[in-house]
């Protein structure tokens, strides 16, 4: 039965498992020892309660890791709050590259379609430079967004490496002052 609870614990986020997993298994083993002398129905109710509790707990923890806090619903204003332990997933870079490639491909396709359509009237003014300007502006905005994201990520990564996010968890020294 303990193996079943361990399997359910795997549903929790890794950080939560690391922090509370050992304790939870210890509590579950103590509770299981106490319930062993009870009848089958009580034992089954216990297993259902614990299993359900672990499932719901895992769900809530994942929801919390997405929404960024406890005191919120799905539509809370804190759902986008950045936590001190926040890290961009590695897939973000790949996703941004894919999005950029898709945008560029769409622009090229649109340009090819535009050139293939015969114009009833000859273009009056210099249209191509205007199209180029839009394309260049879009590319510039995208590059700027990617660059800003990369810089932000770099700053967060560097701050995390320095351990600055742990400063808020530091307790004041309780030792005596020198000279006292």
């Amino acid at each position, binding site marked *: 039965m303990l193996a079943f609870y361990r399997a359910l614990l795997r549903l929790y986020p890794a950080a939560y498992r690391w*922090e509370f997993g050992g304790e939870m*298994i210890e509590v579950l083993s103590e509770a299981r020892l106490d319930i062993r002398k009870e009848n089958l129905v009580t034992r089954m109710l216990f297993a259902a309660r*614990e299993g359900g*509790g672990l499932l719901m707990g895992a769900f809530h*923890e994942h929801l919390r890791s997405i929404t960024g806090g406890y005191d919120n619903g799905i539509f809370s204003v804190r759902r986008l709050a950045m936590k001190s332990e926040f890290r961009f997933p590695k897939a973000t870079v790949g996703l941004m590259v894919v999005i950029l490639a898709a945008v560029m491909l769409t622009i090229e396709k649109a340009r090819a379609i535009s050139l293939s359509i015969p114009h009833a009237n000859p273009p009056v003014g210099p249209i191509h430079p205007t199209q180029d300007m839009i394309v260049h502006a879009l590319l510039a905005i995208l590059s700027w967004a990617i660059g800003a994201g990369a810089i932000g990520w770099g700053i967060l990564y560097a701050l995390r490496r320095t351990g600055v996010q742990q400063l808020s968890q530091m307790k004041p020294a309780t030792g005596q002052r020198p000279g006292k």
Partner: protein
Amino acid sequence: MEVSEPVLLILLSLAGEPRHGYAILQDTERMSDGRVRLSTGTLYGALARLLDEKWIERFKGQDNSRGKQAYRLTAAGRRNLRMEVARLKHLTRVAALRVAREET
């Protein structure tokens, strides 16, 4: 932070002395006359939240192995618990008056 009945029972359990996870489970069941039986998942969900809000803290007791972590109330947690108890006292007083008025 909203204080649900399980959270209130956990806070009350820690009001007397620091306790480990299983001791909290047993105490909450005892306090509620067996009505509230917390699962381990619910207990640690509440403990994680209370730690996050700094209402409780980890306590380095004699038996401080990985599986035997004790918790105790912080000053903020004790203050909030007092406020919650005062709120409940007021509520039960009002409820008693209203019920008595309806009975007469």
